[in-house]
């Protein structure tokens, strides 16, 4: 008999769009260029209609502690970015779900990433940065990254934790995270069988 293939086919991942929000053009700039396109070569003064973007941003943690950072650093969080660009004049930006120590860590991460040279590989730095954190802080940072909609920080922390979990047996995961198993013996046995029998490993 033949050994015709029965390999599991690789499923396609749906592509994640990572669109960078573009900063709206400075209205002064737009008007000037329109005029230049025309026949007149005279310079025409233009009045700006919007307040300029601030150089620094103030963030406010859960405890109302304030952190001052550069605009570019804060833009790695969609929440912060939107608060500023929406011109709501929300300065300081309230981040009520993030405690001060966690916010400090997020800022440290963003700073390092914005300061990176073009094409610089930060994998080692990321690993060391996250490796220094306690488990509790790690998970809090992931939650905060999700709340603040910071994709780079979220990807990084989640992948780091996921890599720890991978290849671990059930008992090892419990040990590592200090989790108590709350299944009865019977339930656990049934679930192991459930997994093994029906749903392909």
């Amino acid at each position: 008999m033949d050994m015709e293939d029965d390999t599991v086919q690789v499923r396609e991942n749906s592509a994640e769009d990572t669109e960078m929000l573009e900063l709206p053009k400075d209205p002064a700039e737009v008007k000037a260029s329109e005029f230049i396109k025309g026949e007149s070569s005279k310079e025409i003064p233009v009045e700006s209609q919007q307040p300029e973007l601030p150089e620094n941003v103030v963030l406010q943690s859960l405890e109302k502690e304030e952190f001052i950072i550069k605009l570019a650093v804060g833009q790695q969080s969609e929440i912060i970015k939107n608060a500023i660009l929406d011109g709501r004049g929300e300065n300081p930006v309230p981040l009520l779900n993030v405690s001060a120590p966690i916010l400090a860590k997020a800022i440290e991460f963003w700073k390092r990433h914005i300061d990176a040279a073009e094409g610089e590989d930060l994998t080692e730095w990321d690993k060391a940065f996250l490796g220094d954190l306690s488990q509790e802080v790690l998970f809090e940072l992931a939650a905060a990254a999700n709340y603040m909609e910071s994709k780079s920080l979220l990807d990084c922390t989640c992948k780091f934790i996921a890599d720890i979990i991978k290849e671990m047996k059930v008992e090892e995961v419990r040990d590592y995270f200090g989790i108590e198993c709350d299944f009865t013996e019977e339930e656990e046995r049934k679930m192991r069988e459930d997994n093994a029998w029906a749903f392909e490993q």
Partner: protein
Amino acid sequence: MGGEVLDERRLRRSVSSDGIPDVALECVLGYVDDPRDRDAVSLVCRRWYWVDALTRKHVTVAICYSATPGMLCRRFNRLESLKLKGKPRAAMFNLIPEDWGGYAAPWIAEIAVAFQCLKSLHLRRMIVRDADIEVLVKARGHMLQSIKLDKCSGFSTDALKLIARSCSRCLRTLFLEESSITDNDSEWLHELAVNNTVLATLNFYMTELSILPKDLELLARNCRSLSSLKISECDLSDLVDFFQTATALEDFGGGSFNDQGETNRYDRVIFPSRLRCLGLNYMGTNEMPTIFRLCAALKKLDLQYTFLSTEDHCQLIQRCPNLEILEVRNVIGDRGLEVVAETCKKLQRLRIERGDDEPGLQDEQGRVSQVGLSALALGCPELEYIAVYVSDITNSALESIGTYSKNLCDFRLVLLDREERVTDLPLDNGVRALLRGCTKLQRFALYLRPGGLSDVGLSYLGDYSNNIRYMLLGNVGESDLGLMHFARGCKNLQKLELRSCCFSEHALALAALKLPSLRYLWVQGYKASRTGYDLMAMARPYWNIEFIPPRPEIYDHATDDRRACVDSQAQILSYYSLAGKRTDYPESVIPLYPS
């Protein structure tokens, strides 16, 4: 991939006793994809079980009778991707009655009402009716990105028309390879071309559908992302315009040279420059030059349905240093394999199918043996998958593979029946060396002849198959003792197929009980008892036992007597099931347990 919390943005701070915020756990688990990691995660504690259930994106149900659709839904109702397998693998060799089962209807009914997030459905070896497709696309057509009806049967081109109309917004993949489809007309392809603009993969290879080349051209014009196309037979000279339009095409299969020899019919055929994967039917020596231009960049080449000689293979493969996947018939010969070993250093997958058995049609040099295999092992260290029909074999060739093919995950060897004498049997030591050396091996098939593997060799299979999850064994071992020793090992073996063996029913039942991870067993060709009730030794809760009585009416295609004899013999199919006894047994299948 993960990153996004399930639905709404939530300011939850809910945290359980282990101090991990729910939100964080959901995010993290989104990055855990491997099914085995997911299984471990789901067993940690109740909360993790439920977070896994909510965030698991893909599930494969290895045999559709192992669980009910309701069970799947109760646990994983946010599934985005589902793969279901129906008929046993042996169905691909016409060994399973057509009405055995594997009906998609109950699953599709559940999908229509319950699985709100489903984007991808893959059905393999199942019976799918037009009415089922109608239910599916009515409920999920607006979301489905991928539909694969893979070696399925029971539907017609009317179903394809429905898909073309209802899934026009999102459908990126439509895969129908080797399905038996009733061909009413070719309108489905026209509808697809007119309604869809995002299609990237279309495959109706090895179906008997007839289509109009101009509809393919229209498809290429409207679907600018079309990167993979595999079609049923269509002469390549009719595809000139299509190839000119489909500039994004990277993968093409099917299409044929219906005219061979002296002809300028194919002069105008120019393949798109991005093509990296190619398989053309009936290509002969004279037609080879049409693809020379592409060879240097080719990653995948399928020559299984060509008319090339051994020498042709050598000439062609010499030009393809970047090949990662190669599929050929054994006409490639040892000489061709030596060229592969010298040239294709990046080769990952190699399949060598059997050629025609009839004398006169064979190429004299078209034999693959230990010579070619040894060269391959030495020359292609990246190999992960080898499937080969050999005419001759030695222990040292298998030892070479064990020594050099360290990346091997999947190894399948069939020893052809043609030659009277094989150089070096039994293969006990070679098999042991291969298993010990190839530590990543997960799938393994060995189909030999009596004397090919002794009981000692069979015990090696048990002792050294640490990570192997699937095995097909044919004509191995000498007695029940060998099987018993085998069953004491194989600690990760989940799926076992046995053919043409000398084991008794009773021994088979005991082996099934012993193998610690076994959840699927298929056997054909064994020492049957008079009543068949020795099998009941393996009866236990959640273990279905099906018996397919001998079918003398099976027409034997093979010329080999031994093989023909086995085709019509009784079969045992046994598998773990949470769903209990099937409700759709046909007459050709007897449920032994539960009865």
